[in-house]
């Protein structure tokens, strides 16, 4: 099955799963007592974070593979997964404050997980900025790969440091009743499907750009 067919399949799956998930979020999942309706952002906020981490890990792996094998496909894969991961990271950083503003009254609190996400976001925006600046250099892909590797090595350290630093620990102890768990499971699968579809699409866009540009070097 060629890429176009896979893309159609993934998007079909993503659309269906997300439709079901959204229905469950708005109609099926019960409203949480402490925070009210806004708690339901959780059903997309957390899976977005998970997808982001998976994608950024993949970017790390592809970056290593690129440095090792020098195959430009690995560079495209690294760049693709990093970009889609970054989009989901952005979703986390937007939905987090919306949730926080409603549930705790402030747009931003230096809560450990959100703060770590913010630092990750900063690290990877630098990655994209570097690709933008260096697109005319021959070795830009290699330089970017090094940055992606260093950034991901830093992820666990950032988490530890922020956890120890964090003075504000948020009581995000949400008691998950079974209907909530079911909704969460569905939304998790739905978001991952969406991430997969986006990644494949992005990859195909990258391939298309490669084809249309003479020389075959992918322009970031």
């Amino acid at each position, binding site marked *: 099955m060629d890429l176009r067919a896979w893309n159609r399949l993934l998007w079909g799956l993503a659309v269906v799963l997300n439709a079901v998930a959204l229905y469950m979020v708005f109609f099926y999942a019960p409203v949480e007592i402490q925070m009210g309706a*806004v708690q339901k952002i959780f059903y997309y906020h957390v899976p977005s974070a998970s997808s982001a981490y998976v994608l950024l890990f993949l970017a790390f792996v592809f970056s290593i593979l690129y440095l090792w094998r020098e195959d430009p496909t690995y560079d495209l894969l690294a760049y693709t997964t990093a970009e889609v991961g970054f989009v989901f990271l952005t*979703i986390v950083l937007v939905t987090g404050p*919306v949730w926080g503003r*409603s549930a705790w009254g402030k747009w931003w609190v230096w809560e450990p997980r959100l703060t770590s996400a913010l630092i990750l976001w900063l690290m990877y925006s630098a990655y994209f900025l570097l690709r933008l600046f260096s697109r005319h250099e021959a070795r830009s892909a290699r330089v970017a790969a090094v940055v992606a590797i260093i950034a991901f090595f830093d992820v666990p350290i950032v988490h530890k440091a922020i956890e120890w630093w964090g003075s504000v620990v948020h009581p995000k102890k949400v008691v998950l009743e079974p209907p909530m768990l079911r909704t969460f499971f569905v939304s998790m699968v739905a978001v991952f499907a969406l991430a997969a579809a986006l990644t494949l699409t992005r990859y195909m866009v990258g391939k298309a*750009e490669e084809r249309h540009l003479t020389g075959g070097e992918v322009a970031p």
Partner: protein
Amino acid sequence: MSAALAMVQEVAIKTPDTVGYLKFGYLAIGAILAAYLVFLWMRVRKARHS
């Protein structure tokens, strides 16, 4: 959509505007994804016409 939210509103115990924030949150997700898709589409167009 408004019917769904009306239902949610009945059950909501906290301040009614939590529903507003919920709406805003999901709209933001949609907006980000839509913006990204537009961005990708524009890249394809640029590649084809270059």
